[in-house]
């Protein structure tokens, strides 16, 4: 009885994970600039892969009776590092001068950078 329920849960988790990965790929394909593409890639793909790994873990736990701690470790690792990688590459894109979409209306970081850049340059010139 409980095994049937877990099998259905595994199937649902696999479907959800594959769907989220497809959604993130379509977002990377169709969105207009780097920052929106990164928004699609780093969030939807992370949830999709965690869902698929959870399905794999449940499958091994129920079908084989094998508690695989490496899958839990991989889930935690991906959940921590994938948004960090997205943040780093987004920051590198902004600092290397990639333009925003020309229809975007607000750039708060530009004001901050202009305010902070003057004292930094004076400190560097000393």
């Amino acid at each position, binding site marked *: 009885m409980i095994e049937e329920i877990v099998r259905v849960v595994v199937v649902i988790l*696999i479907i959800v*994970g*594959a769907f989220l990965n*497809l959604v993130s790929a379509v977002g990377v394909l169709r969105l207009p600039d780097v920052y929106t*593409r*990164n928004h699609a890639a780093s969030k939807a793909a992370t949830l999709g892969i965690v869902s698929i790994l959870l399905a794999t873990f449940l499958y091994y736990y129920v079908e*084989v009776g094998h508690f695989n701690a490496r*899958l839990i470790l991989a889930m935690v690792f991906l959940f921590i590092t994938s948004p960090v990688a997205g943040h*780093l590459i987004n920051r590198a894109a902004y600092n290397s001068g990639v333009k925003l979409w020309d229809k975007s209306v607000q750039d708060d970081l530009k004001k901050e950078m202009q305010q902070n850049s003057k004292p930094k340059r004076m400190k560097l010139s000393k």
Partner: protein
Amino acid sequence: MLEIVVNIALLVIAIAMVCLIYRVIKGPTMPDRVIALDAIGINLVAIIALVSIMLKTSAFLDIILLVAILAFIGTVTFSKYLEKGVIVEHDRRNR
């Protein structure tokens, strides 16, 4: 039921990887390509998990953690290179 669903999910993830490869080839800037390659690594983890369900073996589960770590290190290295121009800084005084 599970085998059909695993096959369909493998097909869907393969289509997603084809979309991401299009972005790697076409992408106008360098960070686009790095984002798409990072997402390809994550989709590769999903494919490894689904194939190990399909083959009913738990021998490939180390590779999942390995590919995840390698994708993260690669993305961090590329973003540091794009931002600073060097990956490992030797001159520690002028940071």
